[in-house]
């Protein structure tokens, strides 16, 4: 059952991870194309360690994957994690569609 999957602790980490603007920006970038942690660090006015922490939060939330390549750490978007977030929004949209149908019924009464 979908609801049980959504109760997964993973989902909690997912939404907390997306609550931060820098982390959302990192997700956007690495979903479009992989990047090294140092490459990301050059983009933001914060330390390498701070960016590394953001990446770690995203990794725990299964939104990105990190892989060592030589001396670099390569970050990539994790589509499955993003799909999970999308599913929650889809379900919420369904609720509002049903509400709109009920409103139309009430208005039709005059």
């Amino acid at each position, binding site marked *: 059952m*979908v*609801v049980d999957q*959504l*109760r997964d602790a993973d*989902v*909690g980490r*997912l*939404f*907390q991870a*997306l*609550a931060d603007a820098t982390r*959302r920006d990192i*997700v*956007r970038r690495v979903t479009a194309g992989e990047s090294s942690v140092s490459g990301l660090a050059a983009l933001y006015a914060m330390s390498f360690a701070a960016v590394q922490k953001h990446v770690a939060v995203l990794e725990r939330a299964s939104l990105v994957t990190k892989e060592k390549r030589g001396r670099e750490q390569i970050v990539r978007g994790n589509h499955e994690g*993003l799909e999970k*977030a*999308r599913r*929650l*929004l*889809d*379900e*919420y*949209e*369904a*609720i*509002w*569609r*049903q*509400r*709109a*149908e*009920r*409103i*139309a*019924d*009430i*208005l*039709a009464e005059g």
Partner: protein
Amino acid sequence: MPVIGSTKNLEALSLTLVAEFDAVVERVWQIWEDPRQLERWWGPPNYPATFDRFDFQPGGRAGYYMTTPEGEKPRGWWKFRTIEAPRKLEFDDGFADETGAPVDAMGSAHAAVDLEDLGGRTRMTIMSTFDSEEQMEEMVKMGMEEGIKEAAGQIDAVLAEHARA
């Protein structure tokens, strides 16, 4: 087919829904302003909502409970932020304990409703923004009708209908 479109912003955890109704703006406003009308559509038929507090003014609060098929009564609260009759309504929305007090740990969502006159018809735009995962998860649970799968099926049917129209 009242719903004409929706936009999801995955990264900002928001959902915008646009619906059009065959009624004037003043009439559509009543379904928000009048708690007796509101409770006829807020909850699904097998999860009816009952508003037992409704202080419809900026800063005012509303309280409601849903009655589940098992007889449980999960509670929610609203806090009205902006009320500009008959066009604009904004409120925060969250979960409450059995006394009606907000459960802060659950976070809250924010809803912004805009009504636009289309010359006798009304376009209603609702933007919902969430600030936590549990909150959204609970909202989904409380608003659920015959189950998520059936709801998804309904949407498909509706979309198919729309595509044919």
